[in-house]
């Protein structure tokens, strides 16, 4: 398959460039990139994709998703989650290991990788659980899991409570050159908590989760990363002080990175009012001051990456009492629109910076190919219309679950086509038919 992407605005965050031009994809890699594809190169092209008015970016990578397979296929599968990712403009995802059984050894990592090969339109890079069964008592066979394809180690959903265990996991991660992705939460402080602790939880009569629960573990993990030399990545950072701790650590040269998610720069704990279970997530939605700190952290580079923490849940797990509702919201199909509308259009990030946090940065943190728009790079490409106006409609989502907190939101910017290994894995149907008729069947020769 030789595919020519013509006349798009090509943004390469890795080199900090943005230029109009053509891209030739051949044999799964970017074969040519420049202003105008020479006639000689254009021969034998299977399809021309007219990208005029569109942005052509390196494939977006979501380094924090829950695909629920194996074990919770009623919520999501690697196939449905993969399709949701493609529709959201993502070419690669990193599923978390809180599956059933836990993705905590070679067999389970190989299972996820195999299911991905068989069913997912996008690349799937599994993360392995730091401890067996996510039980926080024994370390997983991390090296074996790495051989099987795990790209990172994580305690997501089951935060490591013992500092000793955290230290050993970090030392072991360093030994096998894997980053440790940590969900920072002191569980003793969040026991029975269901939302951020503050005036809103007080008025609603809900058990709070204080910010200190996140801050303490961020501080501890930074100290231990400094001590062990482990590459530490802090997941879904949400609190003002936690961001400041990362800022200070980076300033003194600690190998720490972090991500946030759209919900932490788009929503606050006030969105929980009315016992809105769709806004129940962990870490919980914080306050306006924290939201401002997240934006400032994104703007000054303290926050390296934007992930979604895509957490699909069945209807009955959200249509219930707030305290019994599941934590988490879907995110794959809304992230790009939320970033473009609430960070780029809002003037917090440039388009290049935003794309960088969703492609180049995750690739760098996880030491994966991709995140670059240059000859020889993988032909994982996201093409999006930064001006497309649309309304979030859960009924139209590809994910098996519909628990978005953004239903009805008016967003600007959405994926038009997603390409993985040079193949189109998602294309906006309206746009596709328009192009077919415009080209009058020429492509099909």
């Amino acid at each position, binding site marked *: 398959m030789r595919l020519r992407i013509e006349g798009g605005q090509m943004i390469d965050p890795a080199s900090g460039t943005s230029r109009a031009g053509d891209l030739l994809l051949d044999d799964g890699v970017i074969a040519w990139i420049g202003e105008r594809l020479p006639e000689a190169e254009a021969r034998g092209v299977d399809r021309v994709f007219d990208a005029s008015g569109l942005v052509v970016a390196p494939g977006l990578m979501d380094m924090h998703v829950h695909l629920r397979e194996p074990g919770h296929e009623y919520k999501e599968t690697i196939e449905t989650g993969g399709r949701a990712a493609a529709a959201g403009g993502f070419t690669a995802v990193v599923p978390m290991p809180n599956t059933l059984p836990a993705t905590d050894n070679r067999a389970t990592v190989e299972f996820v990788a195999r299911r991905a090969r068989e069913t997912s339109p996008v690349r799937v890079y599994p993360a392995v659980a730091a401890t067996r069964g996510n039980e926080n008592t024994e370390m997983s066979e991390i090296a074996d899991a790495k051989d099987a394809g795990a790209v990172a180690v994580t305690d997501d959903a089951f935060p490591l409570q013992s500092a000793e265990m955290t230290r050993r996991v970090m030392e072991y991660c360093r030994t096998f050159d894997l980053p440790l992705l940590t969900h920072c939460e002191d569980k003793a402080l969040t026991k029975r908590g269901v939302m951020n602790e503050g005036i809103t939880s007080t008025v609603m*009569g*809900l058990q709070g989760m204080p910010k200190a629960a996140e801050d303490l573990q961020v501080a501890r993990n930074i100290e231990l990363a400094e001590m062990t030399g482990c590459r530490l990545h802090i997941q879904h950072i949400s609190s003002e002080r936690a961001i400041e701790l990362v800022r200070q650590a980076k300033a003194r040269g600690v190998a720490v990175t972090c991500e946030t998610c759209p919900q932490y720069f788009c929503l606050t704990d006030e969105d929980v009012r009315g016992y809105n279970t769709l806004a129940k997530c962990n870490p919980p939605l914080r306050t306006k001051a924290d939201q401002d700190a997240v934006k400032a952290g994104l703007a000054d580079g303290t926050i390296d990456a934007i992930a979604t923490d895509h957490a699909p849940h069945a209807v009955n797990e959200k249509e219930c*009492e707030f305290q019994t509702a599941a934590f988490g919201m879907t995110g794959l199909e809304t992230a790009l629109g939320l970033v473009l509308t609430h960070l780029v259009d809002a003037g917090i990030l440039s388009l290049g910076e935003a794309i960088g946090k969703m492609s180049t940065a995750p690739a760098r943190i996880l030491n994966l190919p991709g995140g670059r728009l240059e000859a020889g790079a993988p032909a994982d490409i996201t093409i999006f219309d930064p001006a497309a106006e649309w309304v979030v409609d859960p009924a139209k989502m590809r994910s098996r679950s519909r628990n978005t907190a953004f239903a009805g939101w008016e967003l600007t910017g959405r994926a038009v086509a997603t390409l993985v290994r040079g193949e189109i894995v998602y294309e906006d149907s309206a746009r596709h038919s328009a192009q077919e008729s415009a080209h009058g069947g020429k492509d099909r020769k």
Partner: protein
Amino acid sequence: MNLTRKDILGLQEMSSEEILLILNRAADMKEILSRDIKKVPTLRGKSVVTMFFENSTRTRMSFEMAAKILSADVSGFAASTSSVQKGESLKDTILTLDAMKPDVFVIRHSASGAAQFTASLTGAHVINAGDGAHEHPTQALLDMLTIIEHKGGIEGLTVAIVGDIAHSRVARSNIWGLMKLGATVRIVGPETLLPAEIRQLPVEVHTDLRSGIRGCDVVNVLRIQLERQEAGLFPSLREYAQRFGVNSNVLREAQPDVLVMHPGPMNRGVEIAPDVADGEFSVVTEQVTNGVAVRMALLYLLLGGSPDAASN
């Protein structure tokens, strides 16, 4: 003026006019309670379902008596002996009961927001009989009715709420109701029993009982649960009683005609000294009577009974 809302979920969302309307109607209803034959036909043919997912015999009985005096049919749903034990969800339980077409649901549940959730699933009226640590509007209304009977009004009074504010729906409903009617509200207790950022509300916060009670017109004492000690929120019931138990000595700080209230059941010797619980300032039994009157008024106003019918 009539009550136009479908549900009674809490006092936070109610206007002072609505609260006064309910309290005035409750005063009328109290007259019925003093009659020899305590039965009026006002709500004949209407059905009320009480759903108590948490045990509270006194609140359930109070609602049932209120409904029966107004001639409504009452059916009780007890979570402990029902399909809930078999793992049925709250949503399914409500939808099942709703299909039996009751006019009013009265719900008590340990989850904050459960009453609102119920209201979102049914076209019937919903009265919150206490949801988690959120609200207990009928308790606050009966407390206010009791205060008005003794003080002639609420405006300008200083009311101290003493004890476990953090876990108390009674405290929250009282705070909203009393504030709306113009009282000064004081919150008194150790920091461990105060909810986060309570100082952002327009209440006075006291962590010393003596200063918290000083000059008060009303002291509303909350029940303390032993499980709070087990959760490490105070060292012992003994120390709690010494520092935050309302006794006749500390009560001298209050106005000479202070009212002492308690939502019950009381732990005599813990949050309230026996001589105070049964003493001259205590109005706890009047609170119970007023509870029936307030619940009658709510059923009457929600189900649109005409004023004439009630006076029959």
